[in-house]
């Protein structure tokens, strides 16, 4: 029972208590750029979830079976980002040819993800928190759920932004950051729930 409980704990703290976008400020570039419309947000969220979970498993394997036995832990950052970038490029090439329909829906977001901060952050945090494989997968899944949640919430609000009168000086990005600030306050409230 306590094993499952600690997994739930990791999931909730990754998705809500330590939300990657609002509390840890990770992956803000795509967060601002991709929330212009809801289907962009969902498409991006789906792609990021898939890549984060796969990448965290991939980086766990690379870390445990190549870097640790040879005591080359200091190489972790560059090896992780290299494997992630190549993995994303391979998936993109494969999807474009083999599954064009899926590529149309999700693939166009893939090039964006190679330079997304969250994937590398999840891989590195798996190492610093020295999770085992199962915990790492749950952590990466939780993190991407938190990311998707953040994207969808902001995309929803941004779409309704059209029908609201905004002071001219705040038009464009300032108002989006203010909205993100208010959502961040809400997420800060969740910080105590998972320990």
């Amino acid at each position, binding site marked *: 029972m306590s094993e499952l409980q600690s997994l739930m704990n990791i999931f909730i703290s990754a998705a809500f208590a330590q939300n990657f976008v609002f509390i840890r400020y990770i992956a803000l570039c795509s967060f601002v750029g991709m929330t212009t419309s809801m289907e962009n947000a969902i498409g991006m969220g789906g792609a990021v979830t898939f890549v984060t979970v796969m990448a965290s498993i991939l980086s766990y394997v690379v870390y445990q079976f190549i870097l640790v036995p040879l005591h080359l832990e200091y190489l972790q950052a560059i090896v992780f980002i*290299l494997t992630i970038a190549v993995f994303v490029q391979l998936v993109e090439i494969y999807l474009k040819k083999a599954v064009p329909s899926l590529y149309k829906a999700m693939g166009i977001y893939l090039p964006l993800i190679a330079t997304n901060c969250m994937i590398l952050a999840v891989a590195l945090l798996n190492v610093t928190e020295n999770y085992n494989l199962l915990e790492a997968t749950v952590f990466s899944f939780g993190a991407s759920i938190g990311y998707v949640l953040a994207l969808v919430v902001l995309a929803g609000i941004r779409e309704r932004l059209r029908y609201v009168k905004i002071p001219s000086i705040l038009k464009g990005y300032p108002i989006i950051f203010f909205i993100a600030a208010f959502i961040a306050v809400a997420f800060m409230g969740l*910080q105590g729930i998972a320990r």
Partner: protein
Amino acid sequence: MKNSKEIVRLGLILGLICLIAGFALSATYSITKDKITEQQRKALVQAQKEIFPDATEFKKIEIAETKVGSATLKELYECLSENENILGYIATASTPGYGGNIIFVLGVNSDFSVKGVKVTEQTETPGLGANIAKSQFLEQFNGKTLNDEFVVKKDVKPVTSATISSRSITNGIKEILNFTSKNVKEASK
């Protein structure tokens, strides 16, 4: 087949660039390697010195990193004075706090009362939870023994508006104190 030559060329170019990168990285790593380990130990050694000023040697007790309740014990040291008698023990441990893990060093006297506590790393809310690292809060633990309750608001005055952080560090100390005394009792038997 032309493009298999092309593929090999791609592989070689990427391989070559990675080789140069690998070489550069390992060179910098070897220069900075011992400096880094020394820095990491410096924080720990400094904390140990503060808790046991008169101890001259800290012998590492071979003990695996164990989970003690919600806290995890990382390392355990024996503090010896010049004439080799045991002054007490130093445990480095971590307990999940409000914003993330709190890493702290607990000094235990030979009579298993708390000699001193130092928080080396924490990510609590700045200005509120972060005050648990300050000495006014930590000094109240000095001299406490196992039969103290270690309960916030009872025998431990919490940091204002940071009850979760205070409670997590308090029961972290209690569990590690409990564990070190039990573990050392068996060892000395």
